């Protein structure tokens, strides 16, 4: 099997158009090099390139759109992000304070409070919507920390073999061995309670996976002849890493990113569940924790317990689906074939 093992950017296009071949192919081979026609003005070349990129994007979109689960994930995600960003437009923060909440204690769902109220009389729906802001922020930022660190370490370790790689990988191995949850719990306990702490705790503990993945991909890329060619052309480390390795590990990173966001959101809720969250901010994990400490589970106050959990699950799922879909788009090997 000789499937192209690297992502193709534009599947909208077929292979070399057959129409271009005959004229040139039929030319006598010994014909002296024809004077090159004047090159077209650079602007048009750039425009062409831009056009190409656009088409590549369209192709990417089309390929992605073929994955229905991925589209569902993307849709759900978009919905959550939009709702979270727009939350202040339709939710009055005053209603989310513990002293100024409008409702009564643990009111069951009603027209006014579609998901009922919590102990302070706050609308659970509003809380969940508002909680998306923190939960998504944590998810994104923690993932950024994790992926940035992991990518840097992974590429450097993968590119520079030998001692460098060894040292970095020993460090990574050492981090990999440390149980993530335990580490995060310990870090969150050590640092002051805040959203930033959670972000750091998650980010710092999850990068080794990314690093390993990126390193593996880097090594795979480094083994390709075009790296050798770049070196033979005189390219240095930076050239190779930036121009060749990075673009080729990007799909991996992107797919990994979406997977980690989901994990981070779950991790945030887990830390909150273990009492390590920041109770003064409203996040899904925080709501769950509040619901749990209020005994909502066993008191039949399902409207307090279910929505944040479902929200976490849906967002995590959405990201996971996006991640898988991206993986599929970027890695033709994963595409359905044969």
């Amino acid at each position, binding site marked *: 099997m000789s499937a192209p093992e690297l992502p193709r950017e534009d599947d909208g296009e077929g292979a070399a158009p057959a129409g271009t071949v005959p004229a040139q192919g039929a030319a006598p081979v010994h014909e002296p090099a024809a004077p090159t026609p004047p090159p077209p003005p650079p602007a048009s070349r750039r425009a062409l390139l831009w056009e190409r990129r656009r088409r590549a994007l369209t192709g990417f979109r089309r390929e992605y759109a073929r994955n229905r689960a991925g589209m569902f994930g993307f849709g759900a995600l978009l919905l959550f992000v939009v709702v979270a960003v727009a939350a202040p437009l339709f939710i009055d923060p005053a209603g989310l*304070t513990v002293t100024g909440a409008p409702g009564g*204690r643990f009111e069951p769902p009603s027209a006014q409070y579609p998901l009922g109220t919590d102990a302070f009389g706050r609308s659970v729906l509003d809380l969940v919507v508002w909680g998306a802001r923190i939960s998504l922020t944590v998810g994104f930022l923690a993932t950024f920390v994790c992926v940035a660190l992991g990518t840097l370490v992974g590429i450097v370790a993968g590119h520079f073999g030998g001692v460098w790689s060894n040292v970095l990988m020993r460090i990574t191995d050492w981090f990999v061995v440390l149980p993530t949850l335990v580490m995060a719990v310990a870090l969150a306990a050590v640092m002051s*309670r805040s959203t930033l702490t959670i972000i750091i705790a998650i980010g710092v503990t999850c990068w080794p996976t990314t690093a390993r993945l990126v390193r593996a991909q880097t090594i795979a890329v480094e083994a390709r002849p075009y790296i050798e060619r770049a070196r033979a052309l005189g390219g240095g480390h930076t050239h190779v890493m930036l121009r060749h390795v990075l673009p080729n590990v990007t799909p991996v990173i992107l797919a990994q990113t979406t997977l980690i966001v989901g994990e981070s959101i779950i991790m945030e809720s887990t830390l909150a569940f273990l009492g390590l969250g*920041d109770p*003064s901010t409203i996040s899904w994990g925080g709501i769950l924790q509040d619901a749990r400490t209020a*005994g909502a589970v066993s008191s039949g106050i399902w409207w307090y317990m279910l929505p944040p959990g479902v929200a976490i699950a849906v967002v995590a799922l959405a990201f996971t689906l996006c991640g898988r879909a991206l993986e599929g788009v970027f890695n033709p090997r994963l595409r359905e074939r044969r």
Partner: protein
Amino acid sequence: AGTDEDSGTTLTVAVSQPADSLSPFLAQRLISTNLHRLSYDYLTNYDPATNEPIPALAESWDTSDDGLTWTFQIRDDVEWSDGEPLTADDIAWTYTKMIEDDAAATANGNFVANFESATAPDATTLEIVLSEPQATMLALDIPIVPRHIWEDVENFGEFNNDEDFPIVGSGPFVITGYEPNQSVTLEANDNYWRDPPRFDRIVFTTMPEQDAQVEALRSGEVSLISGLTPAQADALEGEDGITVNNATGKRFQAFTINPGAETQDGEAFGDGHPALQDRVLRQAIMRAIDKDEIVENVYGGYAEPAEGYIPSRYPDYAWTPADDQRLDFDVDAANRMLDDAGYEMGDDGVRTSPDGDRLELRLHVHNDRPDYVSIGQVLTERLAGIGIEIDNQTVDPGVLSDALNSGDYDLIMTGWSVNPDPDYVLGIHTCDALPEEPGTMRSDAYFCNEEYDELYAEQLATYDDPQARADIVKDMQAILYEEAVVNVLTYANTLEAYRSDQISSIQVQPDPGGNIWGQDGHWSFTSATPAGAGSGAGAGPSAGVLAGVGAVVVVAVAGGAFYFWRRSKTSEDRE
């Protein structure tokens, strides 16, 4: 079909923590001290109804005039569960061990800190000599252990008393089984010198998850649970076969204000906000807080708004302020007080003290106490109403105690469980309780008031006149209230529930309105009466086992059958 001990009645109690040790010298957790209440005898006990000390091993007692020598008459009809007689010598030996061996003093050393000696001149007499008078002499919560067993123990710091079962004791129950972290089983001691217990067996089973406890109660797996949340109490309230016990609280919830941390020598330290040294500000803070709101929203109504330092469950000591003294919720009044005292409101809604410090205060809250966390949120918002900005820091208890010790705090949540004898909780606010040097704080407030100290000494001296002592204690509470350093917010109720179809009656303490779990004494468990025959919790699970295992098997078989059916159906004509 699960148990081979189907005979007899079993009372199953869910507890949220496993026992830390079965050794009375080491055990510190509530569950463990309760176990010891049931399996050992004490010198005295507490009246189930009134909480007053009553005779137990000691039938009667005398005090010398200087209050330093105590002579107890010990019962002569008590036997250890292995049949040996329990004599004064066992008691003297237990106390002496604690005096002499630091390891043995780990758990209850504070009771014997003032002991010069404990001797048994004869089998029924115990003599204790003190170095200074001690108010807790009738509340010596020290389990008495059998000398003939414990004499052989080499290292009290490491012996956990969990090797030979049943464990020899003299209490109404005998510990017969112990699964670390899971359960402790006790059998009734039919020879107990008081009324023997009515249940044949008690099992304490560990369930840290509150919700799991409630579900276990519902399914009949356990008979008694405690520490319900208000929502759970509400939910269980109307359920068949379940009785909710709403007991007055033994605990108060409070916050203390850092009035400027100082050592005993008057050396100031820490970085408490300077404006908090002003009593006006502290009182204004109190007036900004709506205790009813906390009662309602945080405790779902299962609490009382509080003023005095001693919970109302102890009516002798409970105190309420006179009308002109009250620092009731009144935001306008609070704002006026601050305006008058020169705290100017800034443009951003935050006041500045006369000395020019912005009123931006930290509030430290325990992250492991959900009620505190909620109170913290309420305080934060309420104080904003009088121009105080709160930095709400919900932290690990460790962090919190670090902040307290180093005086680096402004407001800090706290709360104490108050014993029938309030000496200890009062004592921690004397000037003596201030640290000798920065960082060695043991109390929860840097409070030092001469008048309070004098009253404290006075109440110590009048322990033999309860009424007079109670009056003094109330005066002390008035000082605390007025100084507004230690600010009591509520007395939260203790919420418990039991299966009334398994337990027909059970003693609460105090009676009425008292709690079942965590009593001073063993009354709840000795008084608990089984309801009907064979309704012990043991019956529930075995049916459940069959049903559960059956369900799993059915699912597995069905799944497997489906799998193979599909496979055989599709395998032939495929490629």
